[in-house]
């Protein structure tokens, strides 16, 4: 998503909303998170959620505007967002694109296609060979 942001930030606004953790240590932890040293318990307080969000921002030098869902999960509930989902809201405040539920139906290329249809495609060279850099759900370079 960062690449899409860089390609279209002059045309559209971007907002990341951090919602409840998908694979915390005290729930369904993934081996990949242990390998990448992304090990957090499910936040029980807003302060814990804010702390994890800041860790994420610092680790990836994340450039996209960021908001944190309150501990009552209001944004998550309103948008059926968990574990990850993409939306595009148009200028009139209506939903113009609603992505599928992640991770299986989370597809940044659909957002890119929506933006490309409006503002033109931005082409890139093919990506280099697979990197060993850690991959976070919000930090995917796609």
């Amino acid at each position, binding site marked *: *998503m960062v690449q*899409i*942001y860089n390609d279209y930030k002059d*045309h*559209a*606004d*971007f*907002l*990341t*909303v951090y*919602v*409840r*953790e*998908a*694979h915390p240590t005290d*729930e*369904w932890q*993934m081996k990949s*998170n242990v390998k990448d040293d*992304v*090990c*957090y318990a499910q936040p029980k307080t*807003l*302060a814990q959620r*804010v702390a994890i*969000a*800041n*860790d*994420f921002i610092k680790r990836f030098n994340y450039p*996209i*505007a960021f*908001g*944190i*869902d*309150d501990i009552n999960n*209001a*944004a998550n509930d*309103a*948008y*059926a*967002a*968990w*574990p*990850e*989902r*993409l*939306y*595009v*809201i*148009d*200028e009139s*405040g*209506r*939903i113009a694109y*609603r992505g599928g*539920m992640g991770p299986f139906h989370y597809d940044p290329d659909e957002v890119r296609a929506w*933006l490309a249809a409006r503002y033109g495609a931005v082409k890139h060279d093919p990506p280099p060979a697979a990197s060993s850099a850690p991959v*976070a*759900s*919000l930090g995917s370079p796609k």
Partner: protein
Amino acid sequence: MTLFWKWTIAVFLVLLLAAFLVLCKMAGSPKDAYGMVRYAFPHMHRGTLKVGDDAPDARLVALDGSDHFHIRERTGGRPLVIIFGSYT
């Protein structure tokens, strides 16, 4: 036990086993299948929003942990791409 009930139970068990194997395949392992059922399914919701609906509002907290803003404050001028997700 009648033959009917024996077959019914057998078919049920086979379907149960098949569902478990599919979950293991999707999740990666039996442990992950348990995690998916126990922790993921209860929080996965399709929701009712569809293209053309008014975007719901919600209050978000800024990274400093004290300031707040609303999603709808960010809409109106240009299209807004919203990326929902977490660290893990």
